[in-house]
């Protein structure tokens, strides 16, 4: 199981919520060779979904070109302090991780 995500969700002065997520994932492209010259199989996050009060506020599809230990940032309206935010990713091997954070 991958390490937990670091999630920051802060209410801004303009009333919007700025969300920053740092995920822990190798994001292997499938094009890199190891020291023995063998291709390292691709292993990367393909989809990310962020939900707030059962509403999807962002969904993303990623390819292997997203950097290792991916960072995601976005803003949405309608969040309040203390609201729960759920972030879920699924990778190309079907592994998944879900973490949550409260808006601060």
């Amino acid at each position: 199981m991958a390490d937990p995500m670091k999630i920051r969700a802060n209410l801004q002065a303009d009333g919007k919520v700025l969300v920053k997520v740092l995920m822990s994932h190798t994001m292997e492209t499938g094009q890199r060779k190891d020291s023995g010259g063998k291709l390292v199989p691709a292993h990367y996050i393909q989809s990310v979904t962020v939900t707030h009060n059962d509403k999807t506020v962002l969904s993303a599809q990623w390819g292997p070109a997203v950097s290792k230990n991916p960072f995601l940032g976005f803003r949405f309206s309608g969040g309040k302090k203390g609201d729960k935010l759920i972030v879920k990713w699924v990778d190309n091997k079907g592994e998944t991780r879900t973490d949550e954070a409260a808006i601060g």
Partner: protein
Amino acid sequence: MNEQRRLVLKAGSSLSLLALAYSSGLLRPGAAFAADWNKAAFEGKNLDEVMKAFGGSAPAESKAIEITAPDIAENGAVVPVTIESKLDKTESIALLVEKNPSALSAQFDIPAGTDPYAMVRVKMGQTSNLIALVKAGGKYFFATKEVKVTLGGCGG
């Protein structure tokens, strides 16, 4: 993608319609693990191929899309990119790296209530144009920015 799903759902149990969708490539066999992952788009080598996979017409260049990224990236493995669209009814934002083995890096669906704004970090194999592809009001628009890479990020 979602639109395709809706189309297929509308077709319902009508087998002939499903067969039609299948033959026209709307239903791709062996689709990726994550339910909606658009395999064809992520395998596209350039903007044209990605556009074909998205099913859109040729995008128009737009000044209302802003790409923030370093002019020179010392480390191609981690290039921070921010895309902001000022286009009305922005539905999705995609980031392409022109000279990567597969152009499409990331695609974000922007539901109502979410700002047309996304931050992400991507790998760049070499100096290349970044392309921000934005779908707004059913049409596609793009903007480009060149990033010079001094150390490639795809060889590890």
